[in-house]
Structures are given as C-alpha cells and as structure tokens.
C-alpha cells in the first residue's frame, strides 16, 4: 500500500463542557492511503460528519491529532490551514455550497484562483475537472440553469480540481435518483483509482458498496470495519447463505 494521506490518531471531539458535554468522537484511529476509497457509515449522531469536518480541517480535535499527508493540522495557523484545504483537500458538501452568481466553470475555478493560480490556468483546470464529471458542455451555465444532479457534479468538480489528494464527501448523492447517484460514485471511484484518497460519508449501504473499506461508527467510536475480500466465488456462495 502506498503513502498515508489521512491519519487520525486518538482523535476525540467534545462539544460543550461539564454535565452538558457531548462527545461526538471518542479516541478514533483511522489511516487512509492514497488510492483508497473508504466509506463511513453509522446511525444519525454517530459522529460521521464530525469525522469528516475534522479530516478536512474545518474543525479542531479536542484531543488527538489529524494528519493530512503527514502534516499535523493542530499546529497550523488559520491561513496555513486554509491553504492546505485549497491545495490538497476537496470537500463535497451535502447541500453543494455553490455560488449562484458564478457559472459552473467559475465555481470550480474559484479555489484555484483564491490560491493565486492565474485565471487562465485555473479556468483550464476547471474545464478538466468538469470533463471528468461529464458536464464539460455545461461550463458556462449558472446554477439556476442546472438540475440538482448537474449541480452536484459541479460541486464534485470543485472538490477534485487541481488533482487534490484527499477528497471528502458528505452524503454527496443525497437527493439524487439512483442512476445519477451511481454516476457520482463512479467519479469518486475514478479519483481513487487515479491515486486520491476518498472518504465518503453515507447512510446508504448500496453507495458504501463502492468503497474498498467500510468503517462503522457508533456513539463516536469505530466499532467495526468491512473490507472486500475480492473473492470471485462470492456469487456462488452469496445466495446459499
């Protein structure tokens, strides 16, 4: 297995203090390598989204440390953290978080331009990302001219633009029909195969089925993992169960 892209070492996150404190994550250890597609499952309130926001540097651990490509996030300044997020981490939000007054290509190019990449180059990278998600021809559309599935593809293009190494997706197939959802998973799978580490938070088993490894969270703890055995005889045994 190749290099470690994301590591959580003894990570806990507690909200509030004293008697009203709520532990969202408790002593979580998790390592995700380049090229690996990991799904995180668990009931509501089990800590799935907390894990993702900590991994993306959007929140700070109460205890333990999060490493992205070996860099401990706890020691970074706000500006350093923002730079790391723009360069290495792609985040797909459940509700897209796209800017309505920008076109698809402008939305995707935005993080690159904020990172100081010349507009022309950022725009070219945005087109590449839109091509990867299959909507290159919609580059000049505004958000209100696109369907939910198309907007979600824009959100994913923004997360993968510039060959980001860590892609974090929070229920990215939320409101989409099953065929469109499968298209999104195909894109995420493709990024993992191109060498990115992909973390997908989902409550849908069928979507988690696309991952190499499924991590189960319960009450803020990792309680189990399921990794595919790559067993070709599975179909012969699967039904006799």
């Amino acid at each position, binding site marked *: 297995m190749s290099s470690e892209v994301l590591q959580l070492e003894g990570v806990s996150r507690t909200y509030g203090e004293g008697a009203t404190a709520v532990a969202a994550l408790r002593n979580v250890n998790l390592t995700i390598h380049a090229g690996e597609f990991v799904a995180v*499952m668990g*009931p509501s309130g089990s800590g799935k989204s907390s894990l993702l926001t900590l991994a993306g540097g959007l929140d700070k651990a109460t205890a333990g440390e999060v490493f992205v490509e070996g860099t401990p996030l706890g020691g970074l300044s706000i500006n350093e953290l923002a730079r790391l997020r723009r360069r290495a981490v792609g985040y797909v939000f459940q509700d897209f978080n796209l800017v309505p007054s920008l076109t698809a290509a402008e939305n995707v190019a935005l993080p690159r331009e904020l990172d100081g990449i010349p507009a022309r180059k950022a725009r070219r990278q945005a087109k590449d990302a839109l091509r990867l998600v299959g909507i290159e021809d919609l580059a000049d559309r505004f958000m209100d001219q696109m369907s939910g599935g198309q907007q979600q593809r824009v959100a994913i293009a923004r997360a993968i633009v510039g060959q980001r190494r860590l892609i974090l997706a929070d229920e990215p197939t939320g409101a989409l029909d099953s065929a469109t959802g499968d298209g999104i998973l*195909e894109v995420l*799978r493709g990024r993992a195969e191109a060498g990115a580490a992909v973390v997908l938070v989902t*409550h*849908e*088993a*069928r979507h*988690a*089925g*696309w*991952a*190499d490894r*499924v991590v*189960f969270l319960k009450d803020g703890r990792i*309680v*189990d*993992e*399921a*990794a*595919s*055995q*790559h*067993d070709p005889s*599975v*179909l*012969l045994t*699967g*039904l006799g*169960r």
Partner: protein
Amino acid sequence: MSIRHSLLALLQDEPRYGYQLRGEFEERTGSTWPLNIGQVYTTLDRLERDALVEKDGDDGEGHVIYSITAAGRAEVTGWFAAPVAATNPPRNELAIKLALALTLDGVDVAAVIQAQRSASMRLLQDYTRQRRAAGSAAREISGAQGPGGANDAAWLLVLDSLIFSTEAEVRWLDHCEGWMAQRAAAARKGVRPAASSQRTLTVPSVGTVVSQ
C-alpha cells in the same frame, strides 16, 4: 426458483438438448444459480410427461433434442403474465436468528447485528465491483446487437437484483438497531413500549415478523 418454467421458456426460443439448456440458463443469469445436469433431465422428463415438451430427434451426435408443444407455449405465456407468488415468506435464517436473539437472555443482539452488517457490506462490495466490471464490459460492446448483448444485459439485471436485496438486508439491520436503541431509551425513561396485539403474519414481509 422455477427451473421448470425457465427451461420451458428457453425451449420456446428454439429446440435444444439438456446441456444446451443448462448452458443457456447459466449464461443468462450469470451462473448465479448453477443447475446440475441431472436436475435438467429430470425436469425435462416431467415436462414431457405433462405434454409441455416433446422429443424431437437428435442432433446427430446423440443429444436428444426437445421442442415445446402448444400447451407448453401457453404455460410460458401464463408464467410471464403471473406475478411471482409470495404466499409464504421464504425461510430467512437471519430473521429467525435475530428473532431468537431478541427474545432469549444472554445474547448480544447488537453484536449479532453488526457481525451480519459487516458480512453483508462485504458481499455488497463484491457485487458492486462485479457490477462495475460487467457494466464497463457491456458499454464496450454496446451497439452490438444479438444474443450476446442481451445476455450481458440479463446478467446486469441479476447483479442489480443481488445488490438491491443485500442493500435491503443492511437497511433492515439498521432499522432493527435503531428500534432497539429506541426501546432501550424508552426503558430508561420508564415508558412501556406499546403492547403488540397482532403476531400473525398477514402480509408476506419478513421484516414484519421481527418488528412486531
């Protein structure tokens, strides 16, 4: 599974001998439900006895060819027209195991659920990988007409069916776990769960057995 109707439907397509029927059946369903040749010939004997097929000479290499009769065609038409009957829920070992785990002392039901969920997820991962491989193979030959393309499509449908039923199993396990958590919370607050009055299964749904 109706082997009888499946073989009859294949014979409606064209006259065939036993090994051909087995090969056709397995190719169209992705070898998911392997048939043994003895089963095929026993079924053919019964179909012949019931006048739904008849022997139609041999292929010159000693294989006895069977062809469908008019009564056989009517039987196939009726089979496709009728929904698959689910009058009795199929025996579901997992539902039985969970029902017993819930009602017997000293069984860690949460552990039973999680062990099954991990196993089902692994299965789902394997099915999904095969679905992706089969899907890209089908795309490569898309546009190609003929029985090969149709058989690939049939295999994709079978895989989808396996994926969706495994997903349903995981969702049901999630549901059982959530339901148990609610009961535990209610017990802590001293609220008695609503008494269940009906325990007889009237709807053919396995999930209902345990949740009542």
